């Protein structure tokens, strides 16, 4: 039977009379939690920005026809030497078409799969941008502009013009900013491109594209699927790549394997294509949490110290309380509640400080060529961090208070009263 109002009154009086020590202990927690919130918001903000830089544009599964040598060479079929080793020098890749066979039914099939958020066709073509007698090599990708915008955030990378503009213009081209600069072209201008075969087509520039990766921007442009098919002189079923976005990235690897087996195509999943990038993310997260936890542990030791000192100072009080009928448990609760009050007040202030600092950081301008849509430092205001922060504050103060409170519980009042 614990009378909480009495216990909390005593705890409060102790804390208020030692307001200096109390504030120092609470500030330790505030500092720890504030730093945790700031760090974690800033780091995860940066992380997700860097992730998006890659993730937004990268399909979860990329399906295409790979040019590669046949795994089985004709010699293997020659029965007379089945048990011998055969060595073939200078194997040449097999002549195969770039086009994906039966691409349209395949896309339809993929779009019906419940794991698939969307599968969209692309046509990749090598072209030359022509400026007078100068020819600059480049890539033209035929896309379905609206779908591309929906699944792969194409809009974020168009710095002039619009997705709809491209979609509505049969002769439109979305030009990489690098080429536009090189050739001094602007939206509305015309550009001539030529295919490898030598056919020349005039296209109208409907927008400028900046991916953030300079080498890409210097060669890449986009047009509608139909435009690309017309330029290449191919039929409407000519599709060279299929990009698939899944609902769950974790499904990418098994799904890619399945597609490869089923359709005899090359299917690369995102993790295989960007293995190093995943590692980078997890290492950055690890560092963030290691630093935050260190800060909180340091704050925890501060609380431990101050409560320990408080208990030495309050030896007499403890003895009197015990002599007048407070049980060991009551005394323990008095000191535990002091620790928890410090944790709660310090933690809540820490959340405010963390929110303040991260809000401040989110207003600092951060402009970089690589990220056309980002104007200030990215901050992740995830409410979960605040939840974790206050829980961590309470848990660490609980442990910091537990040992000193346990000690106070065990103090023998007789020893103290007779000791004087």
């Amino acid at each position: 039977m614990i009378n909480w109002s009495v216990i909390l009154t005593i705890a409060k009086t102790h804390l208020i009379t030692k307001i200096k020590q109390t504030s120092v202990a609470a500030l330790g927690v505030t500092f720890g939690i504030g730093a945790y919130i700031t760090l974690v918001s800033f780091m995860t903000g940066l992380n997700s920005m860097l992730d998006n830089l890659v993730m937004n544009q990268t399909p979860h599964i990329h399906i295409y026809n790979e040019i590669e040598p046949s795994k089985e060479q004709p010699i293997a079929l020659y029965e007379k030497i089945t048990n011998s080793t055969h060595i073939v020098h200078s194997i040449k890749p097999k002549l195969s078409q770039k086009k994906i066979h039966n691409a349209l039914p395949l896309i339809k099939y993929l779009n019906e799969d419940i794991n698939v958020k969307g599968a969209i066709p692309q046509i990749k073509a090598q072209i030359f941008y022509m400026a007078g007698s100068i020819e600059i090599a480049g890539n033209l990708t035929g896309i379905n502009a609206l779908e591309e915008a929906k699944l792969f955030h194409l809009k974020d990378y168009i710095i002039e013009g619009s997705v709809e503009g491209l979609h509505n213009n049969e002769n439109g081209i979305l030009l990489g900013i690098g080429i536009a600069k090189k050739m001094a072209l602007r939206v509305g201008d015309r550009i001539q491109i030529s295919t490898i075969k030598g056919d020349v087509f005039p296209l109208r520039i409907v927008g400028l594209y900046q991916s953030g990766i300079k080498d890409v921007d210097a060669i890449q442009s986009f047009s509608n699927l139909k435009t690309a098919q017309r330029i290449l002189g191919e039929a409407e079923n000519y599709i060279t790549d299929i990009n698939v976005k899944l609902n769950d990235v974790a499904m990418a690897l098994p799904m890619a394997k399945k597609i490869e087996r089923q359709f005899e195509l090359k299917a690369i999943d995102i993790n295989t294509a960007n293995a190093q990038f995943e590692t980078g993310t997890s290492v950055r997260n690890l560092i963030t949490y290691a630093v935050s936890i260190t800060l909180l542990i340091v704050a925890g030791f501060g609380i431990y110290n101050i409560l320990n000192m408080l208990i030495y100072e309050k030896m007499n009080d403890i003895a009197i309380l015990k002599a007048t009928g407070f049980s060991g448990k009551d005394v323990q609760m008095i000191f535990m509640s002091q620790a928890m009050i410090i944790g709660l007040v310090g933690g809540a202030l820490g959340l405010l400080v963390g929110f303040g600092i991260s809000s401040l950081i989110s207003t600092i301008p951060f402009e970089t060529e690589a990220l056309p849509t980002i104007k200030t430092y990215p901050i992740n205001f995830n409410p979960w961090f605040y939840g974790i922060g206050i829980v961590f504050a309470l848990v660490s103060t609980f442990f910091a208070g537990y040992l000193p409170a346990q000690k106070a519980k065990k103090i023998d009042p007789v020893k103290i009263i007779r000791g004087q």
Partner: protein
Amino acid sequence: MNTVLEAKNINKFFEKPVRFQVLKNINFKIEKGEFVSIMGKSGCGKSTLLYILSTMDTEYEGSLLLNDEVISGQSSNNLSYIRNKHIGFVFQFHYLLADFTVLENIMLPAKKLGKKTLEEIEKDAYEKLKLLKIEHLALKKASQVSGGEKQRVAIARALINNPSIIMGDEPTGNLDSNNANNVFNIFRELCDTQHLSLLIVTHDEDFAKRTDRIIMMEDGKIIS
């Protein structure tokens, strides 16, 4: 007459530094309304006995009865409750909670007991203060009142739950003769008018002589 406190065959050993018997076969009774003092030379075990009787020290052999109920061997939570409800304490040094006001100090044991509302407790506390003629100190910090006054506050605190018995460990040992006399008169009056039982350990012969009965101790035994 009702027996308030009874000790039966109490033995106590100190284990450190060597095994040593401090109390040998202690037997006595205190009746309701009796004012008893324990005297003896330093080290004869009188304080040790008092702390056993107060239930704060539980490492002893024998049994202890409070209001005809055995209280030896009860759980420490129960003992805390018994101390809170039935035993009032006055020490040699005026043990008050320095950060609290005099009134809060007096009210604390009653709040812990939790039998009455806050208003009733406050009324009781003022009554006890009036009884001890220190009501003007009620709202002062405990650290700001004088030694003699502190001891009176401690007595008021001991009285707040209307205990069965008040125990004192040399309550006048640290006071000048005037204040000591005051404290004795207060005890005497409580005993006479409220039929309170008192058990006081003291060195002061004058003090002891004026009590109803003196228990003399020597080498851990009661000699008279």
